[in-house]
């Protein structure tokens, strides 16, 4: 048991091993890696000295995919096989993509699972695979830099990501072979980077306008605890939209219709992006785009005209700001400062609008492109166990309400938005027909009243309800949201005990078996011997369990265990130690599970008792204070 080992002098290892951990900002446009070295968090550079890795992957028919700048450079010449901004498609269904996809220069194919795939020369590629390929590249870079296998990573996600988008991110990490310590909300990560830097107590607003998403979070920082009070946003609004609006304007000026080729469209969007960035400092910028006939159309854009063009997009970011303030129960006067995050906050007009809205100049001390990765690295360093005794704690919230479909296509909310996670909530329902033996459970996310307007996360059926009169059955549905913001749902009929439990797999996400299959497929081409890697992971897991159980026995066997329990646990312990030598994953796993099972009650008892003792100590401290 990690927590209490630390307090046990005899158990302390003389040399604390430094664990390798990184923070990953998996962005729409660019991804970044950061780590803590000698107590200082910094972004990591690749072999060419770049901090940013463009979130772009190019696929080939006969070679492994190319990730990063090299892929981005090929976007014009090979647009259909070069995937950018895949994050915007992550965890999205075909229907969502149809609205977004018209704006994305790819060809989509429909899949049976309902998840969109992109047609490439390497076959149909899902957005999860694209993200996994980016993560793999970052993992190799980090391992080469740090000189060893990573013990864990913290990956950031937009605070406003729903369950499907979070789950898809975790699937991508699993495909890449990463151990995810935590999915961390991007604004929270930024607050960590700032908060620990300045040490300032109070209420902070994080305004995060990135490549593809917009988030705003309001946090209170007090005595090492970051408490997210409210978060709001738009998971489909970002710098990409600024580029698109600008590109559409340029095309209209040049007399280009919507019917231009993928490659041509890519070039126009690329030019729009260049103009946008140049207008950050210049008052006016010249641009040129190809006409359909192949000649060049040239014109000039002033900053004032650019600002007028994108004003509606900036206004769209202020609505969530207002809502977050209301949800937090705060007014503008309560805000201590506003932190700017994300590349789109470089646009001067964005900064002006934020300053007007919050009535103070926003903070831009830390590079808005790096701040999220830096915060993630600090959190990863703590979670992996490199800073025992560190008191920092993040208390985050769920961004969107969770509910169930009830009669008449209405949503009954079980967990309202901005509830602190982890959270467990249960509600009882009943049957509405005589003799009804099954009940359909439809899980939804969003703020709207109607099922039709909400995001469908999953449907499952509770079967085997004994036939009863209508209204006699008592079906309890329990939602559990963990610290990553991921949901699992259980349904149980209370009079008979019939139970059904699922990890929420989004309606259009990957099923566990699909992830397994993709893992197996990727192994064929992987450079590492993955079987070896898995065995290694299992051995590490089991070694940790053995160590924890032995420490627990030494500390608490007397008094907390009966003789019989003690004998059972010791037998399971010896059995696991023996199978550790076998190199058979299945055998080790079975012995591992058996030991976990045998120590389950013991672990629960120990947690209760030790936490009670620790709290009693805290209370005593307060009295002395």
């Amino acid at each position, binding site marked *: 048991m990690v927590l209490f080992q630390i307090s046990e002098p005899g158990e302390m290892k003389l040399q604390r091993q430094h664990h390798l951990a990184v923070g990953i900002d998996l962005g729409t446009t660019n991804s970044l890696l950061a780590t803590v070295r000698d107590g200082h968090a910094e972004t990591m550079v690749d072999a060419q000295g770049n901090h940013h890795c463009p979130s772009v992957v190019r696929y080939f028919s006969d070679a492994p995919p190319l990730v990063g700048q090299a892929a981005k450079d090929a976007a014009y010449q090979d647009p259909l096989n070069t995937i950018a901004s895949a994050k915007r498609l992550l965890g999205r269904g075909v229907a969502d993509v149809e609205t977004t996809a018209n704006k994305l220069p790819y060809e989509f194919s429909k899949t049976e699972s309902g998840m969109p795939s992109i047609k490439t020369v390497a076959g149909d590629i899902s957005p999860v695979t694209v993200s996994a390929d980016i993560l793999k590249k970052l993992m190799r870079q980090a391992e080469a830099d740090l000189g060893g296998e990573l013990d864990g990573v913290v990956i950031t996600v937009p605070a406003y990501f729903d369950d499907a988008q979070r789950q898809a991110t975790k699937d991508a990490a699993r495909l890449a072979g990463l151990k995810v310590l935590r999915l961390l909300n991007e604004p929270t990560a930024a607050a960590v980077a700032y908060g620990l830097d300045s040490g300032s107590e109070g209420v902070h607003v994080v305004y995060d306008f990135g490549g593809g998403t917009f988030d705003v979070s309001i946090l209170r920082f007090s005595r090492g605890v970051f408490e997210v009070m409210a978060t709001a946003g738009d998971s489909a609004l970002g710098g990409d939209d600024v580029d698109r609006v600008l590109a559409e304007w340029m095309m209209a000026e040049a007399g280009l219709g919507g019917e231009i080729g993928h490659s041509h469209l890519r070039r126009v969007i690329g030019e729009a992006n260049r103009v946008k960035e140049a207008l950050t400092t210049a008052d006016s910028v010249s641009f040129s785009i190809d006409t359909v006939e192949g000649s060049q159309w040239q014109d000039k854009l002033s900053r004032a005209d650019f600002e007028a063009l994108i004003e509606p997009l900036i206004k769209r970011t202020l609505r969530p700001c207002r809502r977050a303030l209301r949800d937090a129960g705060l007014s503008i006067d309560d805000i201590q400062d506003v932190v700017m995050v994300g590349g789109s906050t470089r646009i001067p007009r964005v900064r002006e609008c934020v300053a007007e809205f919050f009535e103070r100049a926003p903070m831009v001390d830390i590079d808005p492109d790096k701040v999220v990765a830096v915060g993630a690295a600090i959190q990863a360093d703590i979670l*992996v166990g490199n800073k025992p005794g560190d008191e920092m704690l993040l208390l985050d919230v769920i961004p969107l309400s969770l509910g169930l479909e009830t009669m008449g296509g209405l949503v009954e909310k079980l967990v309202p938005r901005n509830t602190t996670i*982890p959270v*467990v909530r249960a509600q009882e329902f009943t049957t509405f027909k005589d003799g009804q033996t099954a009940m359909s459970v439809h899980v939804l996310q969003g703020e709207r009243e109607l099922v039709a307007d909400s995001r469908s996360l999953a449907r499952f059926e509770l079967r085997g309800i004994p036939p009863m009169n209508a209204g006699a059955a008592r079906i309890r549905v329990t939602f559990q949201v963990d610290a990553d913001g991921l949901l699992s749902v259980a349904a149980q009929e209370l009079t008979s005990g019939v139970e059904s439990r699922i990890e929420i797999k989004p309606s259009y996400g990957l099923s566990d078996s699909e992830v397994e299959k993709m893992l197996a497929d990727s192994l064929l081409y992987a450079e590492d011997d993955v079987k070896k890697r898995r065995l290694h992971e299992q051995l590490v897991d089991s070694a*940790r369990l053995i160590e924890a159980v032995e420490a627990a026995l030494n500390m608490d066997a007397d008094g907390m265990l009966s003789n019989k329990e003690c004998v059972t646990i010791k037998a399971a312990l010896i059995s696991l130690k023996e199978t550790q030598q076998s190199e058979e994953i299945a055998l080790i796993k079975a012995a591992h599970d058996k030991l976990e099972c045998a120590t389950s009650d013991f672990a629960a008892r120990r947690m209760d008792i030790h936490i009670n003792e620790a709290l009693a100590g*805290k209370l005593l401290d307060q009295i002395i204070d």
Partner: protein
Amino acid sequence: MESFFSKDYFQLFNFPAVYDIDRDVLTQRYRDMQGLIHPDRFVNATDKERRISVQLTALINEAYNVLKSPLARARYLLQLRGVDIDDSVTSKDIAFLTEQIELREHLEDVKHGANAEQALMQLADELQQRLRRLQLALEAVFLDDCADALVKAHRLYDEMQFISRLNDELDEIEDAFN
């Protein structure tokens, strides 16, 4: 030793089961507990420990939410003392019902009347003061051990619930103005 999962919310935070609790002490204890049990402290622990940590943290979060809210705390305390609260049953107190109707009418008048914004703010102030008075009344009545104390407390709770809802509606109207 008693398991956390069998304790009531007041016991979890080591408070006596009375209505008047110190918000600052509550928050401090909440943070101390989070510091010990939060899943971030168990990232490298065994599966069982991680599961317990999630459930325990969820329990503490729930208990904290109930205790810090004057309305939810009143409801919880009534339930702890054996009062069955059924929201679908409307009050039989005629005077209270009449007042509810009057207050609703007043809100409509204010909304559509002249100087709506200022009038709304004034009404919001009045509601806040009234909530504060109700809170003080609840503090007293929960300490009272006379026979009809719980009936009184229930009546105050109903009133507080109504005023809170009205207050929420007012917030939404004010938002619409902005």
